[in-house]
């Protein structure tokens, strides 16, 4: 079992989740006894090799797959115990999904792609469109509202997908390889956008990815292998140069009961001097 830090008021809490496929000699355990809590505004990155169980775990987190054992709780609702027919409503209103291939509806415009999810959740067409337009404008797509997906760049498509994920105000966003089909610059922009959404709006974000660069925006990085979390890395931002660093490997400093983490000794010294001169 891998036990990850328990936080009060968690958005998502999964406990001892196991998923097995098949039975008898053909039985395969895709995820084994995994526990995880995600706080509001927290960004958790799950990494791991192919076949490690990332997709199965993500499907269970998104109420697309039921665990064989264990519980999944979202905002206090035990979704792993819900009847199958209640799950679509939970997915629609509590989750925002972002996919590797954007998965936009090719026949609809950017605006309609976002609005349709609002309509599915019960919003009136006009209301859903207004909200979709507002979200897309906030994400810099105000001039692209009526463009079909084929006329949008990869980054624009992913921003439409983000707007779609946000339209029903979900508490949790699940992103599957969100930068896989984007170049590094656009990928970085998308990640900064997700970080802003998490931090400014208090939404939790769980990302499954192979992309090491996403570590920079994550609060925690979990390494999944053979269906189990093998390693947990807590990330911190160097207060001097702004670089994302792994707490366990970083140079640290404690001041007035608070821990600071630095990419190098130079940044630590510079910070220390600043503190001294401030005093």
């Amino acid at each position, binding site marked *: 079992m891998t036990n990850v830090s328990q936080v009060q008021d968690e958005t998502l809490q999964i406990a001892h989740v196991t998923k097995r496929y098949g039975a008898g000699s053909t039985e395969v355990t895709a995820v084994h006894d995994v526990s995880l809590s995600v706080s509001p505004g927290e960004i958790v990155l799950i990494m791991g090799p192919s076949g490690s169980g990332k997709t199965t775990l993500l499907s269970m987190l998104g109420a697309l797959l039921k665990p064989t054992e264990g519980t999944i709780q979202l905002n206090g609702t035990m979704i792993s115990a819900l009847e199958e027919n209640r799950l679509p409503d939970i997915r629609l209103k509590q989750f925002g999904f972002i996919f590797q291939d954007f998965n936009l509806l090719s*026949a609809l415009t950017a605006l309609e792609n976002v609005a349709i999810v609002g309509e599915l959740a019960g919003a009136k067409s006009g209301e859903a469109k207004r909200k979709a337009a507002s979200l897309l404008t906030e994400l810099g797509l105000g001039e692209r509202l009526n463009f079909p997906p084929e006329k949008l760049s990869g980054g624009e498509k992913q921003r439409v997908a983000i707007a779609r994920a946000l339209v029903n105000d979900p508490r949790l966003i699940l992103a599957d390889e969100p930068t896989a089909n984007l170049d590094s610059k656009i990928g970085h922009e998308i990640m900064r956008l997700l970080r802003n959404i998490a931090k400014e709006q208090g939404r939790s974000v769980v990302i499954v990815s192979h992309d090491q660069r996403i570590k920079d925006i994550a609060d925690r990085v979990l390494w999944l292998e053979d269906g189990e979390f093998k390693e947990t890395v807590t990330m911190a931002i160097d207060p001097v140069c702004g670089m994302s660093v792994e707490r366990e490997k970083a140079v640290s400093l404690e001041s007035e009961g608070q821990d600071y983490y630095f990419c190098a000794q130079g940044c630590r010294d510079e910070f220390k001097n600043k503190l001294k001169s401030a005093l």
Partner: protein
Amino acid sequence: MIRLAFRNLFQNKARLAISVGGVALALLLILSLDAVFTGVERQITAYIEYSDADVWVSQAGVLNMHMASSSLPDSVARKVRAVPGVASVTPILYLTNNVVYEDERNLAYIIGLPESAEMGGPWKVSSGRSLPGKSEAIIDRTIAEKAGIKMGDEVEILGEEFEVTGLSEGTASLVNSVAFISMDDFEDLRGNYGTFSFLLVKVLEGESPELVAARIQAQVRDVTVQTREGFARQERRVVQDMSTDVVTIMNLIGFLIGLAVMALTVYTSTLSRRREYGMLKALGARNTDLYLTVLAQAILSVILGFLVGLVLTLLLTVVVPIFGSNLALEVSRASLLKVASVSVVIAAVSAMLPIRQIAGLDPAMVFRGR
């Protein structure tokens, strides 16, 4: 979701054209065939409808003209005239024969008319006489034009030569035409005097044809009495009975073609959007939302197909007569209702397989890159 159905439908124009075109052609087959039969029915009963008679009297058990023979002694005419409510009686003789001109033979109802017939003659004459005299015949204008017959030419009817002295309008159908000769000639040719085929009865003003028909039936023996509408209905029934199998088979073929085209295009359309439907399911769309989308696509396609089929059929009703054919197409309300019902069935059945496909979609597929 209806918007999605609409957009999905119009996104792939080639697929839309195939599905709409296929359904339109299938429905055109049904509609035009119905239109042909409706037109033929109307043409075949035109003589009865325009006869100006309120009541038809025939030999007992004879309910119609087509492929039937009726014989009434002249005493019956006197008895009918004596029935209260009868204003006048016109006897006619009738046989199915040919109007022959050189090598051209045209099947025709040959009507033998008394010298001063009040009813039963041609109702519209484009040229010449409206009642035939001795050795004279009035034939249909379109038949005359087709055969190259002009006024004054001789045609052969019942084995004798007649001079064409009149050309009538609206007296030809796809099946046959109506030719008029004098009753005296008709009797001479048959060698049978003092009998009639039918009695055409006009009732007094204010009298009900139904009541007068009932009175005649009650007072005159060995006759069958029907109102004009009833007699025409029996005539139509004969045509319908003769064509039921053909119509059923052609309707079934049309239905199956429409269903096959529609089912194939809806299925391939759904298959090509499998991932999109899976994604919608993952986002939280219910199966019923997705079923509705597929069904709406099928219904929209079928409505478009129906409209195109109807427009093509209506075009045919205008174009066919221009080419001089005696084929008159008529789109009836019953036919429209039938084809609309067939369309609904096509849409519903063609959506069933894709709906099953969607029901089996695993929404988690969106995370597996399938």
